[in-house]
């Protein structure tokens, strides 16, 4: 398979403008600004079948087309580089090793909605990545690729790198916008949606790093070349960041629809040290865990993973071998979500930490027989009832862990302590 996203990774000085341009970089950008109308660009990306890589998988061209063309307000393109989903580190690789690819993709998307200001909102902890992006943007301005009257066409575009202050919730697009506006990183109540009322109340599109970094290739090679890869509904390639009990962890680019089991066993070298696989989270910490026996039929595309009862999400694959205590794993994730809940709406604010506290006593002693059903009930009361998808993200993992490894949870309660690690 030809690499779309990782094509420049591993090339010496891949982060510099000269290297990027020597490999054909910014040719797509020049072509877009000089030869395409925004509608043509949107049609091309629609035709490619590209779907949002932030986790939700919404068709990218469609998202752009929701921006009103006749709005008198300025329009904004915002790149969501606040990658912080547990087990997910694919965007970071692109940002650090191929920053110009992201800048070029960001600008192509900005052109599609005729925005003249694009923001790249980068997670505060990614200090190195932010520096790389700032350097890339500075190089771009110097080379006349960013700024006023680009290529003599009269089109202006500024790109601004903005560092977040370290909150997982700011990866949620409307919380990101609140934060970018200078406010508390709280998700906004929808409707209205960002396409019409986004940043500073203006029409806004928020796209993920991986989504944007795909665009230069699509414009260079054509929508057909992209949509030739993948499955019927999940086109192209996708990055997977693999961590945990796996022989070769790292970031992989796969054609959509690649068999999950084959990927883990062959590409990633399987579970090391002769241990057995106990569970895999396929799409980042907020997605339901899958048991080994569920993997056989699963392919890595949106539809297949969903059919197995989980979600492809961010592509953050977390592998757990037989030494892992599933109660502790669930507790660990619950602790993360309790810490990161923004506290805005009642079910998530109160319920997520409550689940963590109950899980804590299941793992450490003091639990009661009704605790598991109580957690499932709380999770059910949170999911679907919150302002933003964080509530679902926090509610799904404990539910999945308990349903799939109930015996292990019950054993903990009966023993009054951890039965796996002791």
């Amino acid at each position, binding site marked *: 398979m030809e690499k779309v996203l990782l094509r420049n990774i591993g090339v010496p000085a891949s982060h510099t403008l000269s290297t990027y341009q020597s490999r054909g970089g910014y040719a797509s950008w020049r072509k877009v600004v000089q030869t395409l109308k925004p509608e043509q660009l949107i049609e091309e990306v629609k035709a490619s079948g590209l779907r949002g890589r932030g986790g939700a998988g919404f068709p990218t061209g469609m998202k752009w087309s929701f921006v009103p063309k006749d709005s008198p307000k300025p329009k904004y393109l915002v790149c969501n580089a606040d990658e912080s989903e547990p087990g997910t580190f694919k965007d970071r690789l692109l940002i650090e090793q191929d920053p110009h690819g992201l800048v070029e993709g960001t600008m192509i998307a900005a052109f599609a909605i005729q925005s003249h200001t694009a923001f790249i909102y980068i997670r505060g902890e990614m200090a190195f990545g932010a520096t790389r992006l700032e350097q890339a943007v500075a190089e771009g301005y110097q080379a006349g690729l960013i700024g006023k009257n680009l290529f003599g066409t009269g089109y202006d575009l500024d790109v601004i790198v903005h560092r977040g202050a370290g*909150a997982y919730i700011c990866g949620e697009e409307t919380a990101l916008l609140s934060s970018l506006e200078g406010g*508390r990183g709280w998700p906004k*109540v929808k*409707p209205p949606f960002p396409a019409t009322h986004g940043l500073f109340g203006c029409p806004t599109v928020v796209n993920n790093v991986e989504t944007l970094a795909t665009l230069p290739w699509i414009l260079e090679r054509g929508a057909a070349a992209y949509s030739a890869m993948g499955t019927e509904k999940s086109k192209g390639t996708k990055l997977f960041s693999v961590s945990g009990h796996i022989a070769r962890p790292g970031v992989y680019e796969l054609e959509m629809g690649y068999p999950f089991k084959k990927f883990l066993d062959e590409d990633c070298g399987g579970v090391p040290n002769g241990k057995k696989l106990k569970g895999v989270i396929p799409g980042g910490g907020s997605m339901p865990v899958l048991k080994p026996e569920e993997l056989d039929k699963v392919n890595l595309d949106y539809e297949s993973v969903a059919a197995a009862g989980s979600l492809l999400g961010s592509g953050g694959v977390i592998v757990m071998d037989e030494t892992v205590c599933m109660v502790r794993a669930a507790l660990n994730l619950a602790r993360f979500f*309790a*810490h*990161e*809940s*923004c*506290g*805005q*709406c*009642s*079910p998530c*604010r*109160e*319920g*997520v*930490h*409550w689940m963590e*506290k*109950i899980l*804590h*006593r299941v793992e450490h002693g003091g639990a*009661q027989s009704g605790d598991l059903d*109580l957690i499932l009930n709380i999770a059910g*009361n949170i999911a*679907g*009832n*919150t*302002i933003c998808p964080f509530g679902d993200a926090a509610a799904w993992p404990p539910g999945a862990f308990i349903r799939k490894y109930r015996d292990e949870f019950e054993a903990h309660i009966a023993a009054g302590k951890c039965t796996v690690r002791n």
Partner: protein
Amino acid sequence: MDPVKFIVDGKEVVTTKGTTVIQAAAEAGVAIPHYCYHPKLSIAGNCRMCMVEIEKMPKLQIACNTQVAEGMSVLTQSPKVVAVRKAVMEFLLINHPVDCPICDQAGECQLQNYYMEHNRQESRQEVGKIHDRKKTIFGPNVVFDGERCIKCTRCVRFCQEITKTNELAVINRGDHSTISLFDNAVLDNPLSANVVDICPVGALTDRDFRFKVRVWYLEKTPSICPGCSTGCNISVEAYQNKIARFKPRQNDSVNGPWICDEGRYSFHELAGGERLTMPLIRQEGGLVPTTWENALQAVLSGLRGSPALAGILSGRNTNEETYLFAKLARQLSSAAALEVFYQERELTETQRILMSPDRSPNFRGARDMGVGSNGGFAGLLEELASNKFSSAYIVGEDLLGADGEKIRSALQQLKFLVVQDTKLTETAKLAHVVLPAAHFGEKEGTYTNRQGRVQKLNAAVICPEGARQDSEIFLRLLDGAGHKLAYSAPSEIFSALTQEVAAYSGLNYDSIGEQGCELGSGGGAAS
């Protein structure tokens, strides 16, 4: 405004486009429970209590942020809705201290009310509650209990959107989120105590009122704030014949749902202190108690035929009292100059949201009743100070304020001075006769605010034995002066004045209602 037809709980309702489900349901008589929603504030959507089921939508929707659409069918009592309300109530209570017996909000707490309506289950939370700051002073009038707070952010939004003073903010995350003063601010804006009224739980309480009375013992009387001529609608809430607090009473033509802090606490000065309960008369050596009979006789003989009588009313006298006083003064002296107390001060932008520069709620009404002189109140005071009058009748105001010495010596030189007031003020101490009167909270009648809206005062407490209503005193004096009137009740006086005062012609006392009516609107209660 395009009409939209939609269905709530099977009932077809017509409303206007752009209306939210929570508003439209309320119009149709269906109350949807809520905490964070407030009709005068922006939509926060955070409490999740107002979730309803909408046909063809897979997830429940918050009624506060969903606009009605043609043909939309909304269920507010379906099993899913009932279940989510129960769940939300549980979430709001798991870290709540449930300290109702020592909470001042008890009895008017939406956690208590909705728990009874929507939850009614035992706690399933056994793993320890989050603790937060207790009795934290936010400002001169407001105290905060973080553990009782449900983070609805009404108070934060009030300070952002209504006063634009931004004293409050949410800090920290998750279930450690809490309300805090922002950047060392103090919650001391002129409308600060409204946050207590809009707080649906016991998190923000009123430093002045708390722990004074359990709210279910309060007797509530709709009335008008005596603070200034804005005429904010209030509920005077009393316990054992004492005013315990003012609460705003919503009137969108006047004050919306708010009142200012100055008005809110004005009853302490106006209704507090030691009351006069017997008429006093000057004898050698000072003022001594006397009977009403003797006192009124003394007033009549002291003022009748006065060559230059100054009549000064309080800005808190009602239209009815003012009307009678004008009659009385003219009956007593052909050379009577009448005025109503009026002084202005500078207001800040935030004060101007509600407050008027005066402290005379019925200034306009008094003018309408013919109480007014060429030079205005300041002019009359100047004339008084330069000894232009032989006698004076001063009602309900202490004129010996900051610049009082000139007035004191002028009053001392008067041939005859009558002071009618609730307390023995410095002015009253100079009088020949002092008549004990009732205060604003003890009387019924009407005020006309600065916009020309006639609004009704009602007696919230009973005036002490021995003191009399101003109108009764004026009527008895009129009678003694040979001008007996055939009426005495405020409603009767009002109907008499509508015959004489052109601007009030056609108004009907009973139809003023609790929301008042505008002059020139031909009577009838306005919206």
